[in-house]
């Protein structure tokens, strides 16, 4: 019988899962963007996130006692073994949904990485220092588009309001620590969400107000992704993401 996975392993894998799943979603826009520049932007962000996911998976694989590889982690787990937040697996919907999903993620990701750079766990700190430069471009893009669409035409405003109604319940999960995160927060290896919260809340509220969008008042919070309890969308996404390795095990380019 093998020992349970360490909190550090679970956290590295979770960060990788967030990047891989959101990166996969964004890559679904490839060739379908509303204009060429935005098509290229979404695939560039996808590439950054999948690149970051690889670094986290490599770190997780290195610290695992078995001979696990980054590819095993990415391609050979069932849905319940993925620990990404529910937000990132939500379908692309229209451009407004994609932009808002990205913004809610980036508004957490950027300040989180800024603090993770100082982690005493150097493997994590080094990935964060690399990723934070890329994510600052993501945040700039998603924030600008939330404002442009919220403060745009009647139709773009209506679509953004709908996206907010649909996605708002998923934002809180980013700041609700799992058991393994709590262990790492106590030993100051990852940032404390309570310290992050004011900055995160301010960034979201300031942007929505600039966009002329109402802050939803619903108290509902959806969570479970960090513990492997997903929405119905993840299984369909994985069926596509894992297809090659499932159909042709061990296949290489």
């Amino acid at each position, binding site marked *: 019988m093998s020992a349970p996975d360490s909190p550090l392993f679970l956290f590295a894998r979770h960060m990788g899962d967030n990047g891989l799943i959101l990166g996969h979603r964004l890559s679904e826009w490839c060739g379908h963007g509303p204009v060429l520049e935005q098509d290229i932007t979404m695939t560039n962000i996808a590439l950054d996130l999948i690149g970051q996911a690889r670094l986290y998976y490599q770190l997780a694989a290195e610290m695992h006692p078995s001979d696990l590889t980054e590819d095993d982690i990415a391609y050979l787990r069932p849905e319940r073994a993925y620990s990404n937040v529910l937000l990132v697996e939500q379908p692309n919907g229209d451009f407004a949904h994609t932009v808002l999903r990205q913004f809610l993620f980036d508004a957490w990701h950027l300040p989180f990485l800024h603090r993770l750079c100082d982690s005493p766990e150097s493997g994590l700190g080094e990935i964060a*220092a690399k990723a934070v430069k890329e994510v600052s471009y993501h945040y700039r893009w998603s924030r600008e588009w939330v404002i442009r669409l919220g403060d745009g035409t009647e139709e773009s405003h209506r679509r953004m309001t709908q996206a907010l109604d649909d996605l708002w319940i998923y934002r809180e999960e980013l700041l609700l620590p799992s058991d393994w995160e709590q262990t790492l927060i106590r030993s100051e290896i990852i940032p404390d969400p309570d310290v992050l919260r004011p900055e995160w809340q301010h960034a979201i509220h300031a942007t929505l107000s600039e966009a002329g969008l109402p802050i939803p008042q619903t108290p509902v919070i959806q969570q479970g992704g960090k513990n492997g309890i997903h929405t119905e969308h993840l299984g369909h996404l994985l069926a596509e993401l894992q297809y090659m390795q499932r159909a042709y095990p061990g296949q290489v380019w």
Partner: protein
Amino acid sequence: MTATRSRDEILQILSRVCDPEIPVLTVLDLGIIRDVSVENDSSVIVTITPTYSGCPAMRLIETEIRAVLVEAGIPDPVIRTILHPAWTTDWMTPAGREKLERFGIAPPQPRDQHPPCPRCHSRNTRELSAFGSTACKALWQCQDCKEPFDYFKCH
């Protein structure tokens, strides 16, 4: 029996490896070669760092570095990848910047400065998109000659 190569000789050999996506730049121009060391037993260790986390060219660059070293008679070079310190465009050489501009790509500028148009050198330029045809580039347009151009963005 293999002759020991000096560090300078190794760097000379590495200057033959170019970025597959921007073929005017060598890996040295880009600043991704972080260290070259020749050990007592003549073995060679090259330390590289990626530009962007998801840069698809890194694997190819690594393969090409290995190939030129093997071709130059270094049997089994070790190529190490490090993440820290994170790559920055500050490490691009002045020669690299010049080559970029001649190639039609505006080189990285100090923060908040508009890149000059590589064709007419006007500074009257605007950003069309912070993301371009590769991870390291943004798409800009010259407001004077109206040509769009690639900008190797600050990082």
